[in-house]
Structures are given as C-alpha cells and as structure tokens.
C-alpha cells in the first residue's frame, strides 16, 4: 500500500499543485488564526499571573475589597489571629502622571512585613552603603521603581492627540498627582525582584500623599504552619465587614482569565469558522479531483485494489494536505502572535490586558492540538468524496458514456438533514450559557452553517428559474448547467457560504452594536462639557473645593457630579461598579425598563441597575439589591434597568445624595457642565484648563468623548475584521480552485464550443458567468445564514457573553456592495483560474476524438 499510496495518491497532490496549495493555505490560515489567539491570550495571562505572583509573594490568602480600598481597622483583627503568621498590608494607588496618558501602580507597603511575605518587592536603595541609604525605604518622599518603570517613565510619551508629554521622572524626581495637585517623589532606588511597571513606597507615606489615610487596598496573609487556606477562610470570614473577601492569590489570575474568556472564545470561534471554510475548500478540490480520476480508480479497482485501500489512500491525501497546512499554520500562528506582541502587546484589542508585554512561549500540547485540527479538517473535507469514490462500481465508471459526466460533482443536497439542523439550531438557541459561555449559541451557528450548505441545491432550484434565461449564449449555458446540476453549487459555494455568512453576520452585529453604542453615547453624554481628574481608580479626583472652582468659572451654568466606585457584591463575582450622580428625568440615563421616579412607598433608596447587573444578579425592577457601601451592607430597591456598554460586569446607579449619606465619601470622578446660553463652550473649557492646569484634568466635549469611544470600539473589532477578511479570502480560494478544476475537466466541452464558433473570450465569459452564478447562490445562501447568525450573535451570544442588548441595524448598502463585489470578484477569479482551459487549443481539447 505504501508504494501505491505514494505513486497514485500523494503524487496526485503534486500534479494539481495550485488546488493543493490553496487548500493547504486555507487550512494553514484557519490553524494560524486559532493558534495565535490562544498563544497571545495564554502569554498575556501568564504575564499577568507572574505579576500577581510577584506581588502576592509567599502569601497564602489575600483580603480584597473595593478597588478604592477599605478601612484599615480590620488589619489588627486579622494580624492577631492564631491562624495568621504574618499579615502584610498594602495600599495600591494607580497614580496619575500629570500631563501623561499612562499611569503608574504604586504599592504602599509595610517594609517590615514584605520581607517575610513578598520578598520580591523589597527595595534596594541607590545609596545602600551610607546611613541615608539604609533608611531610604522609610523616608516618606522616597519611591522605588522597577527597571521597566524607570525606563518608560524617563522617556517622553506621545499622546493620542499627537502632543508629546514630558517624562514623569525629571532630575531624579517622579512627578505624580493626587486630586488636582502634583507633587514630586524622590526616586531612591530600584526593585531588583520586580517585573513590569511598578513602584513601591512606605505605606504610611503613600496614604498621606494620596489622601488615603486609614485606607488599605489589600492584606496579604501568610498562614500559621499547619493551617490550610480553607480552614483559615472558614475561621476568618465571620470577622470581615461586608464587601471584603478572602481568596487564594491564584484566584486573581483566574478571575482575569474568566473576565476575558468570552472575548477569547468569540475570537476562537471566528478562527474555527476560518478552519471550517478551509475544510470546505478541501472538500471542493477533493470532490473534483475524485470526479476527474473516476476512471483511474475504476481501473485500479478492476486490477484488484480493495475498496478500503482506495478509501484510505484518498483520506491520506486529505490528511497530508491537513498536516502540511497545520505545520504551516503553526509557524504562521507563532509569527502572528509575535507580531501582535510587537504591535498591540497581549491585549487583542479588548482591553483586558492593556499594557502587558508578554513573551511568546512554545506549548507542545497546544501545537500538537492545532496540528491535529489541521489534519482533522483535511480528512473531514475528504471523507465524503472518498466514500463516494470507493462506492462507484468499476464497470460503470469504465464505460465510455461515463466520460460525459466526468467533472460533474456527484454531491447531493440533503434537504431532510438540512431542515433537521435548522430545527436543532432553533432548539440550541434556547439553551442557557454554560459557565458564562453561550455554548448553545455557538452550536446553533454551526448547525446553521451546515444547513445552509446542505440546502444550497434546493435554494438553487428555487432561485434559478427566477433569474430568467437571458439572451446571451454564455449566460444560457451557465444557467442551464447550474439548473441541471444544482449540487455543483455546493462544491464551489460551500466555502463562499461559510465566509459570507460569517462576514455578513459580523457586519450586521457590529453595525447594530455601533449604532446602539452611538445612540447610547448621545444619551449618556447630555452635558456641554466634561471634566475628569483621572479614571475611577486613579489618584486624581475632584473635591468640593474643585467643584466650587468649576462653578465660579464664567459661563458655567450648572455642574453635575459623578462618583464611580468598584466593589464586590459577592466573593465569586468580579468587581461591580456603583455610580453616584444626580437622577433627574431621563438625564443621561438610557432606561430600558422602569422609571427614574423615586418609588414613593419604598423604605429604602432606589437604584437603577445595568442590563449586565440584572442578568448576572438575576434581579429586575422592584427587586432588592444589596451593596456593601461604607463598611455595611446597604439595601436598595431596583427602580429601573438601563443600557450600559461601558461595564461588562454590572453597574448600579444611585442618587448622589444617597451615596454621600451612606458613605460620607464626597470625592468626585467626573463633572458634567452645562454652560449658560450664549457662552462659548471652547472658552469655558479654556478657562477650566487655566483654573486647574491642563496637566491635572482632562476636559472634553461630548463629541470628542464620542469620537474617542467609537475609535476604541472600532479598534476592538479590528482583529475580527482581519479574521473576516482571511475567511473571505479562503472562500475565494474555493471559487478559484473549483473553477480551475472544473475548467480542466471540461476542456473537451470548451473545445467543442470553440469548434461551434465560441471565441476564447466567449469561453472566458462562460467560466466567469458560471463562477459568478455559483458564487451568487453561495452569497445569497450565506447572506440568509448570515442574517440568522447575526440574530444569534445579537440576541444569544452577546447577551449571554457580555449581557448587552442592542437595536438591530442592518447595513443594507454595505452588504449589497459586499455581495455584488464578491460576485464580480468571483467572476474574475474564476476567469483567471480557468485561463489555462481558455488558452488550450480547441484541437487539442478534443484530440481524443479527432
């Protein structure tokens, strides 16, 4: 069998180099995309995990709470417990760097504790030899930087507005911001054990400098010998105030992994569709190859080749293409991942790992897994043609008359299976998510794609009579050919269906999402001007004095404030956002249920929750919401549900006066300003910049925020556009290989037509029309499937993955242009691919007969 395998089967791949190369490339691209997504994400997670391990050091448990911190009075309670051997308190400050767009994570630490719990964070003073150096870490104005932080912050930064921001470290001093004032810290040394961008200073000094006196962000616990983390949690949990939780350090990395999982799975599914399209391409080329070699196989069978040997030989062809594609894909995937690390870091565009600079790691199991997927795509694509070939009776295939059918694929549509798959897709849509992953939605997409391919002949039968026959002979022949053999459309159109369905579904989903985000931004940004000192967790903030300064600026009519805090509603849930701001009318609140009126009869204050909060906490209007605020668990009544595209893990909005009454926290993150009628917004903005110093606040018009938000939105979908483009390219490969193969098998037919008076151009036109017609059917089927998949993406996958609803907005003009463009492109590709058959002499083409 091995000699036979080499000479008859594998040699056949070399004979049809173009088709083999395109199939191989299609599989390689599918493998590469999937592998690159996995590699990038794994490396980013690994990098994040290493950072977490460094900070956690030898801690067995960590006490965590709101991002803004919690009262340090819990520290002695825990430190004195017998279960705890060491307790290391930390204040984590995301320090705003005046004038710059990046920030620096500063850890306020107890130097006597970190030596035992987090030795990797121990600072080394530049002047360690003298007395000043020995006590440098205790000096309140000293800060210690990791090597990366020292390098990066010592350089100017190119901001998104094109301006250059000054270095944050100037003359040995690090310039940071607290509230709306800047101050300098002495860079006194380094952190030899730290990686990433990080700084360490004395805990008390950090609390003082950043106005966080009495506040901690975390306490890392090293447990007494023999005490397990579970036992310690059981013993310590009752001592904790609401909103604080104990967890093992590894949980932070897995929480980030879980946060980004839905996004990663979505990208992997896109890559899988690219791979499936590659499989369809193998199917098309193998089916045509088998049809062409029908007589060869019949002869071999007559000479004694077993049916199973024929089947195995053909499957080996597919496996070899799949393996070669897999190997190429693995190489390409690593290259893509490396390029992505260079260009965008480990973020993949969604913001989960912004700022990480991960290293590429080779994962043997992952590589083997993707090689297997490549082989599986090759074998799966070959399975049906191989089975068909092995079932043909040799005597029948050897008959002269059979020659007339050579090259006509024998693939049949399977309407019953297709319809069953549609029903299955409908049922899969009803499935709830499995661990936050919309498994049912993805299954429905797979069922729909397969059904669209299987039902293509039926669609062809229904549509072709509507197209009319036309007067041109090329059109008549193309129309007649496809009408007589609608199953041929499956062969050429399968790859087109998958790629068009994917592209159109993504286009509809992204358009709906973008239109909804645009509308949402218009609703949530009703003011004339916005002032922000830093993001929610940053060290910049506005206080009452700052608000008074804003109000005194000429042209300012009113100021509305927003306080944003992040807290934990339960031990298992990721951080939950609470926004405190005035609630009046529908001002800036895109409600989809309930109303903004305070419930008259309620004994507790109202809260308006986001869709994600409603989904995750399974509550609705009228239900009670419990939030740990001000060290106690507070109860609210849900008065409405609003649309929020900014916070995937849930948010609640409460009235400012309720928040201040419950917490006493008067800090402000954002101020929304209405200007007096007739006042120039630009002049008011300039006056505000002058009042605070341009480097201390960000002042933006709603239009600017909208533009930036939509730019971020578009960047997030950039990678999906890239993957769509690759899939479309694979689909066009399918048209090219099918057209080339069909044209070669039909050289006799073209020769006869040339005898009857067809010019070479007429033959080219015929091939182009057939390519266009087949692709057109694939496009129609793909668009129908794409519409249905878009609905699944919007209503099932997005809802279950990200808890976002959106209004359907079909980009009709773009879809029509795309469809027409693709059909024309397919006609061109088919004509180019069939050029060999066109060039061939009419005499040679029918030589067997003359």
């Amino acid at each position, binding site marked *: 069998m091995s000699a036979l395998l080499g000479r008859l089967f594998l040699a056949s791949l070399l004979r049809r180099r173009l088709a083999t190369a395109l199939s191989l490339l299609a599989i390689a691209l599918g493998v590469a995309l999937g592998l690159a997504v996995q590699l990038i994400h794994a490396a980013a997670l690994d990098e994040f995990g290493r950072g977490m391990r460094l900070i956690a050091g030898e801690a067995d448990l960590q006490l965590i709470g709101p991002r803004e911190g919690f009262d340090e009075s819990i520290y002695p309670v825990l430190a004195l417990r017998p279960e705890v051997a060491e307790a290391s308190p930390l204040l984590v400050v995301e320090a705003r760097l005046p004038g710059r767009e990046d920030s620096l994570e500063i850890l306020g630490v107890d130097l006597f504790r970190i030596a035992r719990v987090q030795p990797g964070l121990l600072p080394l003073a530049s002047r360690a030899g003298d007395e000043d150096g020995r006590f440098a870490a205790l000096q309140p104005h000293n800060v210690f930087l990791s090597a990366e932080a020292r390098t990066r912050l010592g350089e100017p930064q190119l901001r998104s507005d094109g301006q250059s921001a000054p270095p944050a470290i100037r003359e040995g001093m690090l310039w940071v911001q607290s509230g709306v004032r800047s101050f300098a810290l002495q860079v006194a040394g380094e952190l030899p054990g730290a990686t990433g961008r990080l700084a360490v200073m004395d805990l008390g000094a950090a609390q003082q400098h950043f106005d966080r006196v009495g506040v901690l962000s975390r306490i890392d616990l090293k447990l007494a010998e023999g005490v397990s983390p579970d036992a310690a949690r059981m013993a310590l949990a009752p001592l904790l105030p609401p909103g604080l939780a104990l967890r093992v350090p590894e949980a932070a990395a897995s929480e980030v992994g879980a946060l980004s999982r839905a996004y990663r799975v979505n990208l992997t599914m896109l890559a899988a569709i690219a791979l499936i399209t590659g499989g369809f391409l193998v199917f098309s080329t193998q089916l045509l190859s088998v049809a062409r070699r029908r007589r060869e196989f019949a002869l071999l069978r007559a000479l004694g080749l077993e049916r199973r040997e024929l089947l195995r030989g053909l499957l080996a062809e597919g496996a070899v293409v799949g393996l070669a594609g897999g190997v190429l894909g693995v190489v390409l995937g690593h290259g893509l991942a490396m390029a992505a690390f260079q260009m965008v870091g480990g973020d993949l565009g969604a913001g989960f790992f912004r700022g990480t600079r991960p290293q590429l790691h080779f994962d043997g199991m992952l590589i083997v897994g993707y090689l297997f997927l490549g082989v599986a795509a090759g074998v799966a694509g070959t399975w049906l043609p191989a089975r068909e070939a092995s079932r043909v009776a040799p005597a029948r295939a050897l008959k002269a008359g059979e020659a007339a059918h050579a090259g006509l694929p024998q693939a049949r549509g399977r309407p019953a299976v297709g319809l069953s798959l549609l029903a299955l897709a409908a049922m899969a849509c009803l499935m709830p998510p499995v661990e936050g992953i919309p498994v049912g939605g993805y299954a429905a997409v797979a069922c729909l794609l397969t059904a669209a391919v299987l039902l293509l002949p039926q669609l062809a039968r229904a549509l072709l009579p509507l197209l009319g026959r036309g007067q041109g002979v090329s059109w008549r022949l193309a129309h007649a050919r496809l009408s007589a053999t609608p199953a041929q459309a499956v062969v050429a159109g399968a790859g087109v269906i998958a790629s068009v369905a994917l592209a159109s579904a993504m286009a509809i989903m992204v358009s709906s999402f973008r239109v909804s985000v645009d509308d949402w931004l218009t609703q949530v940004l009703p003011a004339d001007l916005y002032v922000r000192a830093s993001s929610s967790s940053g060290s910049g903030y506005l206080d009452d004095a700052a608000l008074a300064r804003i109000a005194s600026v000429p042209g300012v009519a009113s100021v509305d404030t927003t306080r944003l805090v992040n807290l934990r509603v339960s031990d298992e849930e990721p951080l939950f956002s609470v926004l405190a701001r005035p609630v009046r009318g529908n001002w800036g609140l895109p409600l989809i249920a309930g109303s903004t009126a305070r419930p008259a009869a309620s004994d507790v204050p109202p809260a308006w929750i986001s869709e994600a909060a409603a989904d995750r906490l399974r509550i609705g209007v009228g239900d009670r919401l419990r939030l740990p605020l001000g060290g106690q668990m507070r109860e609210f009544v849900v008065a409405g549900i609003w649309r929020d595209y900014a916070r995937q893990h849930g948010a609640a909005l409460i009235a400012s006066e309720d928040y201040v009454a419950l917490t006493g926290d008067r800090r402000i993150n954002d101020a929304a300003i209405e200007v007096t009628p007739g006042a120039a917004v630009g002049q008011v903005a300039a006056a505000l910049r002058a009042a605070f110093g341009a480097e201390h606040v960000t002042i933006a018009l709603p239009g600017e925020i909208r533009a930036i938000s939509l730019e971020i939105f578009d960047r997030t979908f950039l990678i999906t556009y890239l993957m769509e483009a690759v899939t479309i390219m694979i689909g066009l490969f399918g048209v090219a290989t099918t057209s080339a193969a069909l044209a070669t098998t039909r050289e006799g037919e073209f020769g*006869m037509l040339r005898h009857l008076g067809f010019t070479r151009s007429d033959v080219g036109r015929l091939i182009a029309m057939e390519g266009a017609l087949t692709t057109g059917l694939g496009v129609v089927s793909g668009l129908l499937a794409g519409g249905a998949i878009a609905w699944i993406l919007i209503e099932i996958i997005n809802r279950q993955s990200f808890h976002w609803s959106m209004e359907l907005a079909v980009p009709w003009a773009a879809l029509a242009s795309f469809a027409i463009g693709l059909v024309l492109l397919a006609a061109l590709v088919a004509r180019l691919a069939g050029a060999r058959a066109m060039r061939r002499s009419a005499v040679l083409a029918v030589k067997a007969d003359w």
Partner: protein
Amino acid sequence: MLSVQSLRKTLPGAPPRPLFDDLMLEVAEGECVAIVGESGTGKSTLLNCIAGLEPVDGGRIVIGGQRIDDLDDDALARLRRGAFGFVFQAFHILPHLSLVQNVALPLWLLKVAETEARVKARELLVRIGLGERADDAPHTLSGGELQRVAIARALVHAPRVVLADEPTGNLDPGRATEVLDLLLAQIREQGAAGVLVTHSRAAARRADRVLELAAGGLVDITGRA
C-alpha cells in the same frame, strides 16, 4: 462551395515534418467527400485547417467565395458559427442541456430568437426521429441516438460546410450505417459541402467521392475504395 488550393502545412519538430504539399480539394454544394488514409497522414489536421482551427503555411481556403485562411482567431470563430457544422466521434453533447437545447446551441450563437431556435431544433429532431424526446436529458440516450443529435446540431443552422471526423467510430456497424445515411441525406438536402474523415472503407463508399490522403496530397480513389 469549399475550395482548398495549394495547401501547405509542416508539422513543427526536429526535423520539421511536411504534412501537406500543394494539396487541392474542391467540394460542391450538396456533395459529400470522404477522406481516408493511414493513421498519421493528417486527415484530422486537414479538417482543422479547413475549419480555421490550425494555421497553415501556405495556400488558400475559400468558403462560398470568401477566403478564410488570412482571418484572425476571433473572425474565424465568428465565421465558424454560421459557416460550419461539426460532427465528432465522441458526440460532445452537453450533458446539462436537453436535446433540443443541444441542437439549438449553434442558433443561440447566431443570436436567433429563443422561440425560433427551439422551433427549428425541434423540427430537425423530428426529422431525425427524436422529436418525442426533445426535452429529455442526454444521459437517457444510446450512443447512436446521441450521434443523431450531434448531426442535428451540425445542421440546424444550415451551414455551408459540414466536417465530420469518424462520426461512426463509436457505433456498432448497424447503427453506423443508419447514422451515416442520415448525415449524408441531411447534407445533400441542405446543399452543404460535406467532408467526412473515416477509417472505414464501407463508410467512405457511401460518400459521393472518396479521396485518399497520402504523401501530402489527395488522390481520388472513388470506385476503388
């Protein structure tokens, strides 16, 4: 109707092989000429040259008074649409067209209206005894029936010249005679010039004249074949 004058053709190679040297052929309207000869003497090449499918090295080919050997490829293709009919050994019936569509194919190329093309194709199918099966698919027909369809296709547009290369090569003797008689009768009835290439002396004898291709020229062997 068909006049081939002083035709010269040399096959490329090392050394080049002269195929025709000063070859002459005249075929009148309604006349059918059979060409016989050993394999490799250039019978099929002669048909290709007449149809403008192969270039010639010298001489003239005239169809109905029009010289065609100096036309370019596209002009020859356009000429073939109306002036020539072809019958192939392997029929070359398009499997995805019905019989009537296959026969109407040359009329489509001549941009004849669909209704008129169908009527003409049906008439011809009736004349060759396949009127009842006009809308059938080709794969339901026998070899002899398929060749009759090919003959109808070759004649439906009333060509001035009909070229047939081994039209009975794939048929059993009984079917061969029947098909050949039909072809010759139709050529004569339409007043076309017919050129038939065959290995079969019996088939050749049914033509008006029999010419043997040998040593680069044609020799009339009518009565001796």
